[in-house]
Structures are given as C-alpha cells and as structure tokens.
C-alpha cells in the first residue's frame, strides 16, 4: 500500500496530455520495433496481441517473455515518457485550459485516437476487438440510461439493437449493394460511406419507435413486471425476424459493406458519450433520477413523468439501434441468434459490473468485460466461470457496480497538474 501511495505521488504531476504522449511512444515503439527486434529477442513467435495474455495462458513457459515484452513496450515507455515530459506537458496543458474546453477535448481525443489507431493497426484481430469494444461501450451507456438513470430493469436491449441492425442493413443493402435479396443497387457505391450515418440514424429511430412498446406499459408497471414485459419484447422481435423470410429469416442477412471502420465507430462512440453526458447532466436528464427515486414527488415538482419515461426508453433504444447498425457493418452478417438472451446477459453484465448511473462506469465495464472475455479465451470453459465470479465479487463489495453515480468532469481530467505540485 505504501508503495502504491509513493507511486501515486511520484506521478501526480503528470497531466492527461503526458499520459497520452507516453502511450503514443509505447505504441510507436511497438509499431516500429515490436516484431523485428523486441519479440525476436524475447523469442516470442509474434507480437503478443492482447498484452500477452493469450500466449501466457496457452504456453505457460512463455510467461516471462510475455511479461518482459509488456514491460519493455508498454510499462516503461509510458511511465518514463509521461514523467520525463511533465516539465513540457504541464505548461501546454495550462495553455489548453485557456482555450474553450471543447477544443481541448477534441485535441486530446485526436491524440487518443492516434494511439488507438497505431495500436490496432498492428494486428487485424486487435482492430476487431477495438471496434467491438467501442460498440459495446455505446450499448452499455445506452442501457445505463434505462436501467441506471431511469432505474427500470429493461431486458429488451438486444431487441432494440436488432431493430437498428436490421433497419440499417436493409437500407444499405437496398441502396448500395447488388445482392440476391434486394436486387440491384439504387445508388452508386461511392456514396455509401456518406449516406451510412443517415441509415444508422434511421435504424436508431426505428429502435426508438419500437421501444414505445415497452415504454408505454412502464407508465403503470414497474420492477419485475416491466422486466417481464421487456423480456417479452425481446422475444417478439427475435421471432418476428426469424419468421420474416424476406430479410433472411433465421438464416440471417449478410453482405453488408464494411462501412463501420475504426474511425467511424470512434466518432460515433464519442458522439454517444458526449450527447448522453449532456443529457444526463442537464435538468431534463436528471428528471430521470427524480422519477426513479420517487415518482410521486417528481410528479408534484412539475416533472412530466410520462414524458420522462418515454424519453429514457426512446433515447436508450435509439443508441442501441445505432450500436446494432454499426455491429452489422463490422461483421457483415447478422442473424436473429446474435440478438438473443446471451447478448442480453453480456450487456447486463457490463452495465452492472461497471456501475449504474455513471458513464465512466459504463465505459470501464464494457472495456473490462470485453477485453477480459477475449483475453481469457484460451481457458475456454473456465472463462465462463471466472467472469461470473468476478461479477459476483463486484456485486458483493460494490452493489451498484465499480464506479457508480459519478460523471465525467472533462475539465478536471485534462487540467495541468502543475499547481498541485507547487502546493505540496
């Protein structure tokens, strides 16, 4: 513990900019020297994909090499660069404090994207994980609006996702792809990526409209009963899709062009975080909390509770629809089985693990469960023992999840750590 404290104090003067710079150095080192020199010297067969977890679990003999790789490529460069550049990054961070916050955030995000891009560039598998993880972030935050902020236990999220995924897929297939199902493309293919955002939004809107089927019963029912209604909705959507032969039925639907590239998904994720953050920190959005904590009091304090509930469901479903659309265009194939109860369990695990009523918690939950799920893949069956166990422990020690009831404070996150050092 003392060591941790010491460590924390040592790096307390590093602003976010410094950490990003460190991360950038690390990924650049990996990009240029990772395979040719570092893995070669450490006798690793290739660059460890997920920090060496896969190879460590498959071949325990390689554990020292994989750890050494992590140390050389990630830990040391990040720490050293972050600390060494603190003298330069702090004044820059101070300067950035003077420009509008939004510009500073965009700058940091651009740097972060660069890090992510270089890291994901090295390996196709990595890129796929990053893309799917970001989609999961959107899903988790959007279900947090309903299950966390609004406090209803909704089980219909995969259903909303399916509505979005199918709507968006149908639109892109009809418009831009020559395929068996819908025939000739109506528009030239080069327009595709530009129209894609609109087809995504269309998917989101369909999902939002579908959510009314759950939102309207929620005026009169709460808790377990609403959970059952929402579960019923999930099954309705799933069996409807299974029986609609025109969209492939249970065989699924394939051939979506790969419009959901890394930058596209990144932008949508950031947009989702930004908009939902704005919403839940405004009075309009906090009305969700008021309705959750005491509906009668909310109603007496002029809050339109029905409108608020409808907003929560439609808004959450909209983003689930967007996530579904992105998902379809990552895998280029969807079938009703993708949006089954398994998916629901996964989403619920992420949101309850990460923390209710918190965007940052949702991000942490989505990333942890996803990366853990990939990293523990070699354990096969045991993976499904370990992850639920972790979940149980989190529930015992932190019933509301890891980071609950906390919002992102971008200003605090990005500010220079100069003054604190002088004060100490």
């Amino acid at each position, binding site marked *: 513990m003392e060591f941790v404290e010491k460590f924390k104090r040592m790096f307390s003067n590093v602003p976010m900019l410094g950490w990003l710079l460190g991360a950038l150095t690390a990924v650049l080192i990996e990009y240029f020297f990772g395979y040719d020199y570092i893995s070669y010297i450490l006798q690793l067969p290739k660059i460890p994909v997920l920090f060496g977890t896969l190879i460590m679990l498959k071949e325990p003999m390689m554990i020292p090499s994989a750890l050494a790789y992590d140390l050389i490529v990630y830990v040391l460069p990040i720490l050293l660069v972050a600390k060494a550049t603190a003298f330069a990054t702090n004044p820059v961070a101070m300067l950035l404090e003077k420009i509008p916050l939004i510009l500073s955030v965009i700058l940091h995000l651009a740097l972060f994207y660069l890090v992510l891009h270089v890291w994901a560039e090295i390996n196709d598998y990595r890129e796929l994980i990053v893309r799917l993880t970001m989609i999961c972030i959107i899903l988790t935050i959007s279900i947090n609006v309903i299950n966390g902020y609004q406090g209803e236990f909704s089980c219909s999220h995969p259903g909303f996702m399916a509505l979005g995924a199918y709507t968006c897929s149908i639109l892109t297939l009809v418009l831009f792809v020559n395929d068996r199902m819908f025939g000739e493309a109506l528009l030239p293919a080069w327009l595709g990526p530009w129209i894609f955002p609109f087809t995504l939004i269309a998917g989101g809107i369909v999902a939002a409209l579908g959510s009314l089927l759950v939102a309207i019963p929620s005026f009169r029912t709460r808790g377990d009963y609403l959970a059952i209604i929402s579960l019923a909705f999930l099954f309705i959507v799933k069996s409807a899709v299974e029986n609609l032969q025109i969209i492939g039925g249970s065989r699924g639907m394939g051939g979506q062009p790969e419009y959901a590239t890394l930058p596209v998904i990144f932008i949508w994720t950031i947009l989702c975080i930004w908009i939902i953050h704005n919403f839940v920190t405004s009075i*309009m959005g906090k009305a969700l909390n*008021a309705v959750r904590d005491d509906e009668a009091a909310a109603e007496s*304090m*002029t809050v339109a509770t029905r409108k608020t509930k409808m907003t929560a469901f439609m808004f959450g479903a909209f983003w689930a629809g967007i996530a579904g659309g992105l998902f379809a265009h990552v895998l280029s194939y969807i079938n009703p089985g993708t949006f089954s109860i398994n998916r629901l369990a996964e989403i619920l695990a992420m949101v309850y693990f990460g923390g209710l009523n918190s965007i940052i918690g949702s991000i942490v939950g989505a990333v942890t469960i996803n990366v853990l799920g990939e990293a523990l893949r070699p354990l096969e069956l045991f993976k499904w023992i370990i992850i639920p166990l972790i979940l149980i422990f989190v529930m015992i020690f932190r019933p509301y999840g890891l980071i609950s009831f906390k919002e992102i404070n971008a200003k605090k996150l990005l500010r220079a750590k100069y003054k604190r050092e002088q004060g100490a």
Partner: protein
Amino acid sequence: MSALLNVKDMTHYFGGLRAVNNYNLNIEPKQITGLIGPNGAGKTTIFNLITGVYTPTKGNIHLQGENIKGLDTNKIAAKGLGRTFQNLALWRHMNVLDHIKMAHYSQLTYGLFGSFFNTPACRRQESEIRENAYRLLELFGVDQFADQLVGNLPYGAQRRVEMARAMATNPKILFLDEPTAGMTPDELVQMIKIIRQVHETFGVAIFLIEHRMKFVMELCEFIQTLVFGEIIAEGPPEEIQNNPEVIEAYLGKEDVT
C-alpha cells in the same frame, strides 16, 4: 370568482368507502389555512385530491377561476400548487442543489434537443436556474449542504430542503403536509419562523395539515376540522379552540394550549 383556490362539493369514493364528503374550501391570496383532524380523517386524501394525485368522484376545483379537476399532477403543480409530503419524499441519490434545480422543470424552455447538444440557450437557462436555486437554499438556510446527498442531512434540514424545493416550483399556494412531524421543540419553533418568512417573502397562500395545536393556533388565520371525511367545524382559531364538538372529536379531554 375572487378566491385563489375554490373547492366546491368535493366527494371522493375509494371503491365503496366514502373518504371525503361534500368538502368545500376557499383560499384567498396570502391566507394561511389549517386542516386538522384525527388520524384517518382524510386530510392527506384531500391534499391528494386537490393536487391531482386522485381525481375526485364529484365536485369541482378551481384555481384562479380555472378548472383544474382531472389534470395531471405535474400540470396542476406547474399552475401553482406546490406541496411537501407527510413522510419526506426526497430523491435519495440526488444532492441538495439538484433537488431545487429539478423543481424548475416546468420552467425549462430549451427542450430535449437543447439538452442533448448543450446549446447556448440550454447553458444560459441552466445557469439562471442554478443561481435561483442557490438563492432559495440560502433563504432556507441549507446552502452549506448544496453538494451533499439529502440522506446525509439532519432531519430538520431535510424538511427545509423539501420546502425550498416546493417553493422552487413558483407556487401560488403552498400545501404543507404535517411540516413538523417528528421534529424536536427547537426545530418546531424554527419551522414556524421559516413558514412565516416564506409567507412574507413570497406572499404565497399556505394550506397546511398539522397535528400540533400550538403550531396551528399560532400560524393559521382559518381552520377546518375534518372527521371521517366531513367538516365538522371551521372558523378562526379562537372559535375552533373553544368548539365543544372539536374538543370532543379530536382533542379528547386534553387541554388545548
């Protein structure tokens, strides 16, 4: 109709049970009215009927000449009926400042898309509301708790937060449901002071349910006594105090002080 609030021949049945029978009420601007009666007499039901939680089976309710019977509770509240609850109804995961801000909900004009994209209009209005909320917190002496969760506050302070919240809806009439329930004598004296202060600064009419006679006699200009859903006596405090029916039905043999 000059009365601020006018309730005429209001009757309400819960299934076969007649909870309120032919209830009439007239509240003039700035008047403080008290409603007393033994447990189960239907006092809170009357509150809930007027504020729109239930819709009365019969009768009419007019607020400034406008019929508000059958409207949604939030609409009635926005028209100028603020209320507090018998058992504190605060939002346990929200801090004190957010409580007061939330009660400005009906005054929001920036709309959903304003809140999604944090438009300048949204930011401007949110900061205005924030300032107003701080003013109210100061007035009720709870500004030092602004960032705390309500659950961490002492009981008396929670009551004051609830009242500040009710005042934030900008009411014309404030409904107080047992504002001193569970309070110590000290807190009671403080509460009387606060209600007086609210009455003077905002010029609102007040309609309150109370059990403690000291409180009612000191504050109210007009008192109604309710027994089994019917008014058995109404009038100024001195009259009620000496009405034998009231003493028998409600106060028993105890001295009225």
